[in-house]
């Protein structure tokens, strides 16, 4: 017997918060898969630390979203008891840690760099949110995002500017992930409402600065910016890829099998 699934409200502020909180939760879950599999012990710890930072951010954001939603859902219920369509993270976060191998290091670091840059820019803006709770979460998270960005950027440069083999793998990762970045900067009514309330920026506003960060690191790495892609994923509106169900099955298993279980 499994505990009944819950649904969240349609208030734009709740949706805006869940898009960010779910991004942290789902990428944190993905990075957690590296635990015990990284190429060296030191990086194994680094990736696990980052996964835990992201889960920490997700906890704060989901808790706050639950309060705004007003249905009495706490962070655990929001993390473990929603069905797939109720998760609002961009598809980028749920993609596996590589398309050709289950643990593709170049793919993982490149996604980490792109996402942590995006989170860094977003948290910087959210520090000035009209919502004091969100501003406080962002003020704490901005330091974590800045560190993660630096760590991932170093790897992108190291591998891009490394051996022909590492550069080729980095370039492949770049091409593979490129189409999924579009969703990060696709503005819609939820963003418009967030801007109107002073809650936070439309994600589309972050694009020029994000591109500047990427261009700088890619130039240091000697990698080529892929051509623009017209593909648009829609995880922010609850339409996910085939990878999401598998991820959620693992994420939710314990809470579904032992409803309300605590430790």
């Amino acid at each position: 017997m499994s505990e009944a699934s819950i649904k969240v409200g349609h208030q734009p502020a709740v949706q805006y918060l869940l898009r960010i909180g779910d991004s942290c939760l789902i990428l944190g879950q993905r990075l957690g898969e590296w635990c015990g599999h990284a190429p060296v012990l030191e990086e194994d710890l680094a990736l696990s630390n980052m996964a835990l930072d992201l889960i920490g951010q997700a906890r704060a954001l989901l808790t706050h979203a639950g309060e705004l939603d007003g249905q009495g859902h706490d962070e655990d219920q929001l993390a473990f008891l929603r069905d797939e369509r109720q998760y609002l993270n961009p598809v980028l976060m749920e993609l596996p840690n590589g398309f050709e191998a289950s643990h593709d290091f170049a793919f993982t670091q490149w996604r980490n760099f792109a996402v942590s840059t995006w989170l860094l820019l977003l948290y910087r803006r959210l520090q000035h949110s009209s919502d004091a709770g969100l501003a406080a979460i962002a003020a704490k998270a901005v330091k974590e995002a800045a560190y993660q960005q630096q760590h991932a950027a170093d790897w992108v440069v190291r591998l891009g500017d490394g051996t022909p083999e590492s550069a080729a793998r980095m370039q492949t990762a770049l091409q593979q992930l490129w189409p999924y970045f579009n969703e990060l900067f696709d503005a819609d009514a939820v963003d418009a409402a967030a801007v109107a309330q002073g809650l936070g920026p439309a994600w589309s506003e972050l694009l020029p600065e994000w591109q500047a960060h990427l261009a700088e690191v890619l130039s240091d790495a000697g990698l080529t910016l892929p051509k623009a892609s017209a593909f648009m994923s829609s995880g922010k509106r609850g339409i996910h890829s085939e990878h999401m169900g598998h991820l959620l099955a693992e994420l939710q298993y314990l809470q579904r099998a032992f409803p309300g279980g605590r430790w």
Partner: protein
Amino acid sequence: MSEQAAVEWPLWEVFVRSKAGLDHKHCGSLHAADAKMAVQMAREVYTRRQEGCSIWVVPSNQITASDPGEKSNYFDPMEDKVYRHPSFYQLPDAINHM
């Protein structure tokens, strides 16, 4: 195995200062490709529970150590030289913490 050793990253010794005013203490070692990576990895491995506010890393091969085989020549002669400890002075009462 020797081939493995050839591609292994160099070893670094890590020193962490636990808070301002205290000295950096040796806390362990790690492998990293260069100094910048060594500092980052030290942050991940040795300061994740708020252990420090500053990190030094030193290439392990830059440390010259005393020879363990010379241990008895080096250190045993100090055993019976109690006069090298300043323990035979009468301290004035006003001095509290010596």
